[in-house]
């Protein structure tokens, strides 16, 4: 069992790798993820490396564990190495409001003089965190409902289908906005709202796949050896039905990034002062007559990231099913 499984994953990877576009998209996804992960050391007012009387210090590395609000006093000493983008996302300077892109600020500054590039880098963190968590919830909830619907069929399947129909009846953004606004916007409400509104795709994929494989020999073998239903579903069937669900998870991530940015754009997203791509665009709307760079770069960031996830998902699906 294990052997065949790893073999098929290798097959999928081999087919996936053949598409140049897929590989470019995958590399881009990895880059964005790395930028998000290392945002505090990539864009920070605090230096990367300092030499003080008591030895070497890494001031910006401390921000990995939550940034502190307000001004922090730096230790005395020499700066050895500055961060690649030497501006924190919330470093305000009214003397350089709406500054055009230039040597000091590659992507310009916003309405209160914050560095756009630095906010983009930190915005990746917010966007990806929200999107990955939301997709994970959607995958968990969807796999669960899809698995029991596909395994038991009958009235369980009927009930799950009705539930999916109900969720799909609400215009997606209406439901998400409603949940987020009524329960006060925060990262957690957004993640939960996105998760419980987007699980339906994963459920449908998993349901179909489980129905296909539940009568295969290994499922019968598991049953014959006396395994309980839960064990058959979650240990034997689900792991073999996960590939199509992972495809849908890729699309969920893309959709979640888009929705999160739309929420932030409408003022119901991750609360300020957290830098978000959508929030940056809502500022851009106010200054659309004066500052094109405010609208351009965050839009490109959202677009390229979403497109990369979509392309990876699409080519992954093709690799799973080379026929169609």
């Amino acid at each position, binding site marked *: 069992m294990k052997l065949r499984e790893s073999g098929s994953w290798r097959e999928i990877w081999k087919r996936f790798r053949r598409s140049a576009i897929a590989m470019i998209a995958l590399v881009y996804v990895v880059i964005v993820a790395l930028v998000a992960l290392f945002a505090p050391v990539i864009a920070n007012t605090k230096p990367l490396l300092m030499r003080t009387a008591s030895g070497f210090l890494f001031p910006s590395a401390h921000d990995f564990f939550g940034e502190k609000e307000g001004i922090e006093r730096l230790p005395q000493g020499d700066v050895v190495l500055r961060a690649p983008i030497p501006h924190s996302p919330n470093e305000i300077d009214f003397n350089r409001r709406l500054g055009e892109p230039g040597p000091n600020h590659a992507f310009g500054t916003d309405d209160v003089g914050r560095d756009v590039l630095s906010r983009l880098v930190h915005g990746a963190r917010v966007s990806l965190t929200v999107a990955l968590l939301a997709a994970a919830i959607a995958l968990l909830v969807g796999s669960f409902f899809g698995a029991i619907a596909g395994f038991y069929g009958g009235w369980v399947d009927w009930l799950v289908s009705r539930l999916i129909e109900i*969720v799909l009846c609400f*215009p997606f953004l209406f439901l998400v*906005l409603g949940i987020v606004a009524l329960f006060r916007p925060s990262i957690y409400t957004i993640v939960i709202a996105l998760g419980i509104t987007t699980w339906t795709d994963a459920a449908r994929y998993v349901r179909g796949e489980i129905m296909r494989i539940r009568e295969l020999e290994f499922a019968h073998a598991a049953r014959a050896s006396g395994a309980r239903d839960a064990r058959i579903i979650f240990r034997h069937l689900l792991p073999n039905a996960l590939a199509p669900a992972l495809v849908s998870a890729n699309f969920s991530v893309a959709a979640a990034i888009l929705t999160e940015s739309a929420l932030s754009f409408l003022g119901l997203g991750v609360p300020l002062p957290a830098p978000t791509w959508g929030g940056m*665009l809502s500022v851009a709307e106010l200054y659309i007559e004066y500052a094109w760079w405010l*609208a351009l770069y965050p*839009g490109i960031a959202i*677009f390229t990231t979403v497109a990369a996830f979509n392309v990876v998902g699409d080519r992954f699906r093709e690799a799973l099913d080379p026929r169609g």
Partner: protein
Amino acid sequence: MSAYLARRVAYAVLTFFGITIVTFTLIHSVPGDPVTFYIGQSGTHGVPPAILQAIRHEYHLDEPLLAQYGWWLRGVLTLDFGPSVIDHRPAMDRILEKLPNTFVLNFIAFALAALAGIPIGLWSASRSGHVFERGSSVVFFLLYSLPSFWVALLLMEFFAVRHTWFPLFGMTSDDYLLMSTTARIADRLQHMVLPALALTYAQLAFYARFTKAALTEVIHQDFITTARAKGVSGTAVMWRHAFRNALLPLVTLLGLTIPYLLSGSVIIETMFQWDGVGHLYLQSLLSRDYPTVLGLSVVTAVVTLFASVLSDVLYALADPRVRVEGKR
């Protein structure tokens, strides 16, 4: 057919109750005293307890939850969601007067997207594997990944700010009332162009992909291979055999589209200050106008439900296989 219809409608009724239960549960799990739903965001502070009690009694908030649901459901069925906390007019009236504006904008976007998207999809599927086709599918994907509000922002920047060809926002100009009838129509159309375009482009990619997928599926079926084997020419196979079958699933597009269009309306109407239900929904959420929020959630969900039943029934009419398969 009538059996299929009856079953579909019965399901729709069940789904409708599901919708009301979901909406009711959501609104009642919001933290805070539900009495604030009715007296607005100022809250209970400083309001005499006797008055609070009276409000609770009037809106049945002192009764068990199930009874409250019953009262609320009665309101839903009679299209009475209570007075808006903003101007104390019935929430339903406020919704109904905005609905036509949303409908006009969405209908235009739907028509434009379908007229352009479906032929593009058919064309690209008929050239499956061709270099242009590979390229076009990538372009669809890229279109799909553009945030609609960013596109709207770029449209505003280019067409309304850089070149003042179209108005930046609003539904009419300031001097609308002074205009002649023809000038009024022109003025309205001018205000419609940018929001309609912004709503259209995402749908366009969706329709093109949907159509292409439908046609591709047909092409892989046996009867196409048979037709080819018989020596029917490539174009004849495409036109006479494949296209006709591929057009069937397009009937379901309407049902699939409406929730997407409505979602898009929230953003686009807000950006362009378009006086429709999407804009109203966001405003009502921000001002915590619960009767309007509830009313709009139910109304939009029911519109979606209705559209999906309609397109399912049309599909069954057009394709007898659906009716039979559903019986299993």
